[in-house]
């Protein structure tokens, strides 16, 4: 009796594995071009055909400016392959700013949803569409069911979902729920460092914390925007010790 049960279990496992293999896209990734980041991510880069979550803290929860600019730069290599649908709930996305980060306006379709449910629905719809290579959604949170739906939509055409967690009009936080995202990042702005002898501000920098990723390791880096003319990868990892200069340590401490 036990042996036949084990056989049946083994048989079921094989069938489940076969079913799962059918829905998974072969592990296409978007590498960051720096081994320090890529080795933390399964497959050596940001998994395409999945969805990823980007959060911020403090005032960023409401404005999500750092996350939006980071995601825009991140999506720059993808824009060459198709359209990017950007779903917002608060209509404050400024196209010239996106263009400055490398997302040309002819590749971005903006959608302003009326509420959270509509934003998720549009996001899901866009991800399942041929010709959409990535969809960015600014939503408050994605619960497990919605997350599973997003994942299925991503797998339809291999589009990548980039979810920016944002409460666009402030207010009380929703209870934090478990999430089905393939990876979860926390983005905060970091002080820029202009080239020696140059006045003003340097290239934008972000403090990037990879909080969780399936099949990978957590990590944290400071990244600087790489100009489009300086290679295919949108970011340059700044060496924490040498490049950070005299920037104060305090703002980077985790709130807990």
């Amino acid at each position, binding site marked *: 009796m036990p042996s036949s049960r084990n056989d049946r279990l083994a048989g079921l496992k094989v069938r489940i594995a076969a079913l799962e293999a059918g829905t998974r896209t072969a592990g296409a990734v978007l590498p960051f071009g720096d081994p320090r980041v890529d080795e933390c991510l399964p497959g050596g880069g940001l998994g395409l055909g999945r969805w990823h979550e980007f959060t911020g803290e403090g005032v960023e929860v409401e404005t999500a400016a750092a996350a939006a600019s980071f995601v825009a730069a991140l999506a720059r290599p993808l824009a060459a392959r198709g359209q990017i649908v950007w779903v917002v709930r608060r*209509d404050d996305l400024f*196209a010239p700013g996106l263009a400055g980060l490398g997302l040309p306006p*002819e590749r971005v379709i903006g959608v302003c949803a009326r509420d959270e449910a509509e934003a998720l629905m549009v996001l899901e719809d866009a991800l399942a569409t041929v010709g959409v290579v990535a969809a960015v959604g600014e939503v408050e949170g994605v619960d497990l069911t919605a997350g599973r739906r997003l994942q299925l939509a991503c797998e339809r055409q291999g589009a990548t979902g980039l979810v920016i967690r944002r409460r666009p009009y402030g207010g009380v936080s929703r209870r934090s729920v478990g999430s089905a995202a393939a990876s979860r990042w926390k983005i905060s702005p970091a002080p820029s460092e202009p080239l020696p002898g140059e006045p003003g501000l340097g290239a934008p920098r972000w403090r990037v914390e990879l909080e969780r990723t399936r099949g990978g390791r957590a990590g944290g880096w400071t990244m600087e925007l790489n100009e489009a003319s300086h290679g295919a990868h949108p970011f340059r990892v700044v060496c924490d010790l040498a490049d950070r200069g005299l920037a104060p340590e305090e703002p980077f401490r985790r709130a807990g």
Partner: protein
Amino acid sequence: MDEAAAALGLYPGQKAADATALVPGLTIADADPDGDVEALQALGDWCVRYSPAVAPDAPDGLVMDVTGVTHLWGGEAALLDDLIARLAANGIPAKTAIADTVGAAWALARFSDERIAPPGGQGPLLEPLPVAALRLDEESAAQLPRLGLTRIGRLMKLPRAQLTRRFGAGVVLRLDQALGRTEEALAFRRPATPWFERIAFADPISAPEDLARAAADITALLCARLEREGKGARRFEVAFHRLDGKVQVAAAGLSLASRNPARIAKLIAPRLDVIDPGFGIEVVTIVAEAVEPISPRQQRLDADREAAAEEGLAPLIDRLTNRLGEERVWRAGPFESHVPERSVVRRPPLSQHETARPWDPERPRPVRLFRRPEAIEAMAPVPDDPPIQFRWRGRLHRVRRAEGPERIGEEWWKKPIDDVAPDHVRDYYRVEDEAGGRFWIFRAGLYCADVPTKWWLHGLFG
């Protein structure tokens, strides 16, 4: 004026006092020309069940272009029978006629018992009618009978030159219009479209799934015709005609012309929720607008796997625009203005348009731009220098690095000269606080020693 009234000896134009004398219990209502026009308009809307081309002909007529639709009723006579019966059922006595020209139909309906003039054969039918049947102005209508010209036949025999000299061009024009020798323009309720289909039901339908199926069926009918003629349309309107004469419309717009019935039916389906079938729907019609030629596409060999980018994107855009509204789905493009909030123009995502000069990459712009700049308290001890610290939303930000100013003036050439003032100049600075947050702030107006300057936060760089 119905038969009951005529039997009592009443006639139009009679004085109210005479009429009350004749019929003591007569109820008198004031004339309501506006109401009449409205009612005629409503009747015109109702008549769309027969043909999309309906023109109200005030004060008491409707002109319908039934070219190419009579076969749907099984002939012209059957159409007229149906129309009369339905009008009578609604308590509207009516007379009808079909002829080649508006003038002839008008004359036959009002002055003749003949209902249908054969093609090109209106002349003999018009001959015995009085000249009033020509829609003449009052003066000619009064003068012609005085000269013995009582019948249209007499008028037709007279030399045209004499007629024109005696009675002006109006009489000849009306005669020509009735006989089809000259054009006549009609103001149709809506432009006549050949892209029209109609399904009538023996039993009225009302179940939601029946409505959906009817919409799908009629879309398929029209799309088959579009397909045959190599055309597609960008707007479809399905009208549901209720038993009580009310019409309800479900419409769907597309960003690219299409004739894919499944796709169009899918766009219309969500609109059916608001259709109230009442006692039942007896007729469904569909009209396609913005019809344009589209070339048939070669099916790809690997069609099930891949489609052209437009094929996938266009249905998505259509779904979103129909669901959220046109202003909520856009593609941003540059607009030639240096005022930041005016430098972006939003267009429908798939529309073709000429591109303006792109935004200047040398002038960094924030990724978030507030619709209304937010007031900040800034401390800027040095004139024309960025502030050293500012307070935004109750939090103090110490400025670590700054660049600017970028002076942006108002578009003074668009305003009356009195409204132009130096206070409207904005000096923008890009500043970074100690935590790395990058802000786009500006000082309103020029620096002035004795007036406190106002600072605003307009956007956020990430």
